[in-house]
């Protein structure tokens, strides 16, 4: 980096993503607190460990193959030609964005003085992966084995969500080109898919013992510690700021990128390389959060657990188009998403006996799905990608954002890449006898032995005189 402007841009971008990673770490802290707060006393420590251990499990697999998937599969393969080499197969050529640079043996996947961006970009996406796995984690507490959850976490965190990111987020993604898919802050790419995946697992896993009466009426369980849930959700809100920032490119000269001769236009862009501003998305983040809280407080009659969750659902529902919406549009979309998700949660619970312990399928899955559909109508006609006008492409193959394309995109996210894989993998684990803990353990509590040992230690210490 000998050119000062290039150096400044590169170092700023490196630092920017690094900060987003630190902020997003708070999402995981929040999820851990939230889950423990929602679980019962006798399951606390196993619940905490289950969610904590997804960090190394997803991180290592993300290094080994997850990140490569993002760069290898935007064209399907076989669904739409690449804008770089017109191939519809894997990107394995020598172009600047070839997937071969992101294999675990690549020299760019380490300390490399020629690359200041790969590591922080890898990490930003990795934190998205943790979030996807953590969303699933909350729904299935108190009855899944840690082994089974580890496999499911790797599947959603290092395989399925990143396939959808390659298809619907990557600048070369076939869903952008053919469907006009637009999902700036991951209503579908993270939330709908993780919610769908959790629903697929829950269909096989079954409810917690005692959740439904003998006549099939659902009973409320918890949260045991509303204060831990409160702090957890506030931390998730906080980490979500980092998530929004990480979905942007902080500084980009769009003139040359769009092939506009002699024109410089420096701006932040969304992940699709179309202009937005950090200022603008700040309006929308807070207004959609507010819309969610307002609607949640009303529909849940002031119940704190649902009100906090609804704030999150409001943001999630508006996220697909929060790079372009007016703040009041964001607020209203957040409200609509919350009301529909809340109603759907209780309808599915009663009708299908699905025990989603923290409402994760509703808050992430239904709200994300609904947000994608609304985005198709509200942003109908906008370009889905910066490259639809760019020098790298002829401008004919990227569909504009449209309701049908977004509806199909929502189905792909929630059902095709979420619910179906979750259901199949859970079925396989169930068939191996590895999915659910024994009934006796669930009744006694996963932490029974830990608690027994602690009590025995307490007695020994209490009776000690020296």
């Amino acid at each position, binding site marked *: 980096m000998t050119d000062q402007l290039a150096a400044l841009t590169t170092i700023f971008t490196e630092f920017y993503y690094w900060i987003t990673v630190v902020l997003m770490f708070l999402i995981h802290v929040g999820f851990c607190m939230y889950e423990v707060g929602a679980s019962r006393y*006798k399951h606390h420590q196993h619940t905490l460990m289950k969610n904590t251990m997804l960090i190394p499990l997803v991180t290592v697999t993300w290094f080994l193959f997850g990140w490569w998937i993002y760069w290898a599969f935007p064209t399907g393969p076989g669904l739409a030609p690449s804008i770089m080499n017109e191939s519809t197969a894997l990107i394995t050529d020598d172009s600047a964005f070839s997937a071969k640079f992101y294999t675990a043996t690549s020299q760019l996947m380490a300390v490399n*003085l020629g690359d200041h961006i790969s590591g922080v970009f890898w990490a930003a996406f990795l934190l998205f992966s943790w979030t996807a796995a953590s969303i699933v984690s909350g729904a299935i507490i108190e009855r899944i084995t840690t082994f089974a959850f*580890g496999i499911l976490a790797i599947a959603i965190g290092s395989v399925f969500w990143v396939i959808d990111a390659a298809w619907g987020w990557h600048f070369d993604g076939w869903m952008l080109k053919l469907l006009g898919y637009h999902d700036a802050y991951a209503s579908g790419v993270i939330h709908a898919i993780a919610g769908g995946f959790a629903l697929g697992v829950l269909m096989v896993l079954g409810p917690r013992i005692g959740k439904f009466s003998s006549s099939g009426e659902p009973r409320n369980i918890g949260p045991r510690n509303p204060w831990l849930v409160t702090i957890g959700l506030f931390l998730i809100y906080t980490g979500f700021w980092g998530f929004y920032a990480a979905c942007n490119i902080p500084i980009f000269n769009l003139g040359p990128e769009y092939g506009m001769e002699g024109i410089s236009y420096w701006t932040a862009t969304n992940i699709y390389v179309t202009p937005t501003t950090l200022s603008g998305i700040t309006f929308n983040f807070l207004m959609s959060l507010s819309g969610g809280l307002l609607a949640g407080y009303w529909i849940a009659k002031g119940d704190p657990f649902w009100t906090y969750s609804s704030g999150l659902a409001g943001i999630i529902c508006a996220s697909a188009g929060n790079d372009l919406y007016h703040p009041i549009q964001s607020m209203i979309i957040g409200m609509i998403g919350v009301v529909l998700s809340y109603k759907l949660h209780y309808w599915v619970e009663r009708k299908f006996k699905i025990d989603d312990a923290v409402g994760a399928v509703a808050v992430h899955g239904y709200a994300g799905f609904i947000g994608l559909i609304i985005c198709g109508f509200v942003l109908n006609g906008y370009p889905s990608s910066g490259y639809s006008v760019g020098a790298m492409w002829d401008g004919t193959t990227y569909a504009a954002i449209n309701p049908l394309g977004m509806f199909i995109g929502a189905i792909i996210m929630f059902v095709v890449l979420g619910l179906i894989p979750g259901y199949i993998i859970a079925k396989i684990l169930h068939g191996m006898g590895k999915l659910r803990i*024994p009934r006796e353990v669930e009744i006694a509590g996963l932490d029974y032995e830990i608690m027994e040992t602690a009590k025995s230690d307490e007695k020994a210490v209490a009776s000690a005189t020296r």
Partner: protein
Amino acid sequence: MATVTNWIDHLNKPADQVAGAIYPGAGSSEGLLVILAIIIWIGWHVLTSKSESEELERLSRKRHGPNDHKSNITDW
């Protein structure tokens, strides 16, 4: 193993040689490191799955009631 032994000499090289990997064993050890990581990763799953199954089996044999844990709540 050292890829760089003198930073001044390294930074004085032509730009294309400065901009590169600087970790120990760069260019020769990556494949081996990935194989090691895969072995550790699979081994961890095997070990923890086995110990979890043993723990669950032991606990399920004891057949504690749903409220038995309450007598084990500590008050340090």
